[in-house]
């Protein structure tokens, strides 16, 4: 069995297991970080998104070993992050989830977007979310939540 380390939410974690296992399983099963969801395992839906060195990254199909030495941030740690916290508050204010299965991935994507583009227009929001799907139809609320978060951040 391999042993390797990953940096997750600021902590160095020892992982005992096959480095070829996609990161999402390591986060969920070995580290009990269940925010990233398994939606497809095919990089088609966005449910598994995490931040890797600040970039929203789908991790359901890429070996965990590839992420060694990088900063992995999961949705669980985003309340400690300026943009992340603003996004979470805005999602609640806009009621931007129904079943919530896609939501953690969207919060991650929205956080990454606002870090890069603090005042995104509709086009930029759409492209920031292009890897993501939602079946419940929360889209319009998610977009409004991102605009709301962007406004709050402009005033801090």
């Amino acid at each position: 069995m391999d042993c390797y380390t990953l940096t997750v939410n600021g902590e160095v974690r020892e992982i005992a297991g096959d480095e070829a296992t996609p990161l999402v399983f390591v986060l969920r099963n070995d580290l009990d970080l269940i925010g990233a969801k398994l939606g497809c395992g095919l990089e088609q839906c966005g449910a598994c998104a995490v931040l890797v060195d600040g970039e929203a990254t789908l991790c359901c199909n890429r070996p965990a070993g590839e992420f060694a030495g990088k900063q992995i941030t999961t949705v669980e740690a985003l309340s400690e992050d300026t943009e992340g916290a603003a996004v979470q508050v805005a999602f609640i204010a806009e009621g931007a989830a129904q079943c919530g299965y896609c939501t953690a991935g969207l919060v991650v994507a929205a956080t990454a977007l606002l870090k890069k583009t603090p005042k995104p227009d509709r086009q930029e929001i759409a492209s920031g979310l292009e890897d993501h799907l939602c079946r419940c139809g929360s889209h319009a609320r998610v977009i409004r939540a991102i605009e709301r978060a962007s406004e709050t951040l402009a005033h801090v």
Partner: protein
Amino acid sequence: MSNPGLNGHPTLDEWIAIKADGRIAVKTGKVDIGQRISTALAMIAAEELDVPVDRIDVIRTVTGEAPDEGITSGSNSMMESGVAVRLAAATARRHMLAQAAEQLDVDIDSLDVEDGLIQSRNTNRSVRYEEIQGDKLFEVDVNPDTDTKSPEAHRIVGGKIAPLDLSEIVTGEYRFLHDVKVPGMLHARVVRPPHYEARLVSVDADATERLRESGMDIVQDGSFLAVAGRDEFAVIRAAERLFGACAWNTGPGLVEADIYESLASNTRESRPVESDGVPQDKPVTPLADPPKSATATLEARYDKPYHAHGSMGPSAGFALRTESGLEVKSHSQGVYFLRSAIAEALDMDEDTVRIEHMPGAGCYGHNGADDAAFDAALIACALPGHPILLKWTREEEHSWAPYATAMSMKLRGSLDADGKVLDWNHESYGDTFMMRPRSGPNRAGAARLLSGRYRDDPPPKFVAGPTMGRHVGIHRNLDPLYDFPQKRLVKNLVRDLPLRTSALRTLGAFANIFAIECFMDELAEVAGVDPVTFRLNHLTDPRAREVIEAATSRLDVSTPPEGRGRGVGFAQYKNLKAYAAVAVELEVTNAAEIVLHRAVLAGDAGEIVDRDGLAAQYDGGFLQAASWAMAEQVTWDRDGITSRDWETYPILGFENVPELETVLIERPGVPFLGAGEAVSGPSGAAIANAIYSATGLRLRRMPFTPDALRAAAMDA
């Protein structure tokens, strides 16, 4: 008023419990599937009991513990559980006030409640709910005639609150069934045949031996084959290897004939549907010639393909076979029915099977949830003592969960000299929507659980008869709400269609309303009347008129801006539940792509409880219906389903989200009307009508893809 939940569960203790710490438990048989029913029920209970919403715990539904309220479906939850919980909470309040009056030695009418503190206006003496009732049984029945608060006194109901659980959802802490983790748990995956008709002939013994040596458990029962092990990803890989080691008898494969041909020509069972939406057990009268006085007669056929539920999280099930029974966790919409089916299939006593509802991804009907629970149960029974968490793969969810049937709707309408409808004919054709698992004669429970049909000694195939209930199935919203002097309505349950079908949000209503509302526009044009006036000319129901006016006064469909089209659609769900009118503005680009610009959704769902949750049902329902209408169709060939993931079964993404405005009509004190499915049909129709307004192309078959638009333009 009779309430199905209260009829079966009349005692107050079955609905409400006051805890010693002051928290209040509300029990319900309706499960939260993202529609926020728990939030609405908590608001109703908090209102009647005069406590803040955060003091209420809506308890997860568990068989044997929660009231059996059947299935969470059909937009019934507010009318059933909402009413039951309101009456239960009011009874509880009354009961505690009576006791308080005695204890404080004051008149009951002098008592007020604030945050669970019962206080006498006369004496200033007080006592808390939990001091009277904490951890005690009420031992009284819910009084169905008890007074409930008047709408003017409402402080919580009708307001806007953040949905329960949302703060845990956005921080990723919320646990879905998929996130269950218990000591010693094994992950499991099923190895499915290539398609419905294939059966397992043999599995390569060397391959299974190697997998067993690597620590995997392999479970086989006939053509049901599964792998379980400690490491989830290793199990996924083992399942892939095992599939490669299987020899299948694939038989003749799936029938590839054009589905709309099959809908028109296969054998069918036809029933006339009378004007209140109820099919009749009598022969269908043949279509007569149009009335002599008709000045114009129009005919059209509309088609809708098979649709997938497409839950974002593939279905999952948890099971543990203990010495005394079976523990199951499921995101099924009907845990009691599921229990009856599982107990029947496993030949167990129902009382030894316990099913706890846990949230899954939005399902919108009978998706793979029940099947996955049964898969987990089968594996657990083969590996007693081991907790099993079984997950379907994305491909499995897309290719094995039931679909909403493809449908065809044939309409013929005649106008009189005043441009009013004189005669209306509507026949709908489709497969069944009614395949939820439930025990029954000839092992009907096992027959309606997917893997039940692949085990050794499978039960006979379950063939659903035509459902005869009001608006249940293909004929949901077949009966238009419009005042037409003469209507002939027929439902046709078509046999021998290729795919597995069952309930998806709205059942037949989505297709029927699409057809009715497009045909109304077609007739309006012939009559030379604008679509809104034409509808209003045929509608006396004031609430129906009001939603249409609310939507179209905000987005005037008769004056689309240059280069764009506008359309309207309307219905009252089941002619009984919430009303919805939708006005849409869109553009069709040179690449034949539809860009949605604006949508105004007007709704009347009776008294509003959870304002934002209700709005979310409308705006979420619109976007889902837009996706059905514009993007989706299940595809297959001889070798199986070919729409197996999000690339081959595309849905609407974030790139095409219009400016959405949701207008809710205020109806304080008026009965709740279920709203979860109200907007879907009108949305599909409004989009089709707006495409016509933009392009002059009448698309009568979904999905409205660029290919479909180009083909229509070629034919025009």
